[in-house]
């Protein structure tokens, strides 16, 4: 037992060093992080900020422009746009984060197993991943969504997750293949570490930056696909999401009738989510790659 503690302390101590190193350095990363953090905060506090029930129809007067009482005005069905926006953000983030996490978990496991194990396991998993990557996801998503009679958020997460894992799987497979050849993995083998320990103690810690960038990618891909389906009218019927807001606005020809306060806010928030995630992605990339290069003293 004692010996495990000795090297376990290493992992904790190393984490501390990496974290404070990361946030001191990069403006883009902190910018991206603040955007996403604020959006998450709003989503979590949604019931407090927007207490009215956003989805019931006819509560308020129709087509009211933004006023003190309705910050973002109301829509043709008499619903407060600001409430919809807040609850829509919450649902969209829920879809994005859960799908992203599911895709990441399945993807990294498949990627690491096939990358580290090699042999027929690798061939099998790699061909399955390749088939998924080649088959066009959008048309199949549309067909599958049509399959669900009454679409809800959980269903959407499941359908999107089916196509969320191949990309991280391929990324992590190539990462593990490259990290496996590093000399310090041989050093670990020479120290009698088991395969499991090598993967979790030696390979994974170095791949942390890639885990976070891939998570940012899978979440933004999931939200992109969700909004796509919602704009086709295949989104969840019972709950408001950012995508369904835009869909209902388009159904009611909000653009032509000039109800800009109904159409543009959800679009802006969606784009804000993507920009936040991309800034985090680029920030992490810059922080971790040069470090690896700078790691070699002159």
């Amino acid at each position, binding site marked *: 037992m004692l010996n495990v503690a*000795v*090297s376990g302390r290493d992992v904790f101590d190393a984490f501390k060093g990496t974290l404070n190193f990361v946030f001191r350095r990069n403006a883009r990363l902190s910018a991206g992080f603040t955007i996403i953090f604020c959006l998450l905060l709003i989503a979590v506090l949604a019931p407090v900020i927007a207490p009215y029930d956003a989805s019931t129809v006819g509560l308020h007067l129709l087509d009211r422009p933004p006023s003190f009482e309705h910050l973002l005005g109301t829509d043709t069905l008499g619903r407060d746009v600001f409430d919809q926006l807040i609850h829509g953000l919450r649902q969209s983030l829920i879809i994005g984060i859960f799908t992203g996490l599911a895709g990441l978990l399945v993807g990294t496991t498949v990627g690491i197993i096939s990358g580290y194990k090699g042999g027929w396991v690798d061939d099998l998993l790699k061909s399955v991943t390749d088939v998924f990557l080649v088959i066009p996801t959008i048309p199949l998503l549309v067909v599958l969504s049509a399959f669900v009679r009454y679409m809800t958020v959980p269903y959407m997460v499941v359908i999107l997750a089916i196509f969320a894992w191949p990309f991280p799987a391929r990324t992590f497979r190539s990462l593990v293949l490259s990290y496996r050849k590093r000399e*310090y993995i*041989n050093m*670990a083998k020479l*120290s009698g570490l088991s395969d499991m320990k090598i993967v979790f103690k*030696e390979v994974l810690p*170095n791949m942390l930056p890639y885990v976070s960038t891939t998570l940012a990618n899978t979440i933004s891909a999931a939200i992109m696909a969700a909004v796509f389906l919602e704009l086709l009218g295949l989104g969840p019927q019972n709950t408001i999401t950012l995508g369904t807001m835009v869909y209902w606005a388009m159904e009611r020809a909000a653009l032509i009738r000039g109800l800009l306060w109904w159409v543009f806010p959800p679009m802006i928030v969606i784009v804000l989510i993507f920009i936040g995630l991309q800034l985090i992605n680029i920030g992490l990339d810059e922080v971790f790659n040069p470090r690896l290069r700078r*790691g070699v003293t002159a």
Partner: protein
Amino acid sequence: MRNRTESKMDNAVLEVKNLTKVFGSSPAALEDFSMTLFDDKPMITAIAGESGSGKTTLARLILDFIRPSSGEIFWRGRNIHKMSKKGLMAYRRECQAVFQDPYSVFNPFYRADHVFNMAISGFKLARSRAEATRMKEEALEVVGLRPEEILSKYPHQLSGGQRQRIIVARAFMLKPRLIVADEPVSMIDASLRAQILEIMLKLKEDFGISFLFITHDLSTAYQISDRIYMLYRGSVAETGDATGVINDPQHPYTQLLISSIPTPDPSAKWQEEVEVSVEEEMGKGDRVGCKFYSRCPHATQICNESHPPLYPVGDGHQASCYLYRELKRDK
């Protein structure tokens, strides 16, 4: 000297039998290589050769990082590829390694002493943290490093020389029988190189640890090794006592190699011009017979037909060249 219980009838500690390794469709990286290291006297055996001679492949095979295409490796009479997990751990404990690139041997995520901690927890060497620290300090002192300067540092805060000495210290801490040193000093400046070679000599003489010293630099091999294997394109060109082979090389390749080494003496300038055929350089020279045929001044017909076996050319000194075929008959 450590007391060794003589349990084996012949005290061969490492036996390599007809080892061959082929990567993909290219010519064999290592072909029919055999070698035996004995346990009675700790020795530094040099495996010398240019890039592409198969020396690193041999090291990776012995350390069981890659599996041979054919041939076996025996440690204390037992085939390492057929060992149980426990058996392999015991083998690892007794056969350690030092690698070439001091920068890639350390996991950048952890502090420098992580290499020690891995070995300690892997082989369950210490019962308490204090004992673990003491082992680390003792090992670092043997290689001439001050523990307080090293233990808390991250790898990128240390120089190449310091890192390499830490890796040697780690190997020493496990008290192995054999250390496979794959080009341990080729990436270190000349001035620091000498110190690491001195450490290797000290470990051999004071702690009875044998070395398999893989290098492309014959002059370092000459300085510290007892026996030497000259590798060329995956097969042994010449082998024997290090001083004998380098002072009086028999195989034409070894002669060319030694004459090409620039000596730090301005008066002894290179004499004649050396020609290397274009095909040779392009690495297309995949031959049936002797692999040195296309560059050998004494090449004859038979050299092109079959690969020459190792003929004895002196006391324990062998060369794989048909020039010495007659010697065999009249010996």
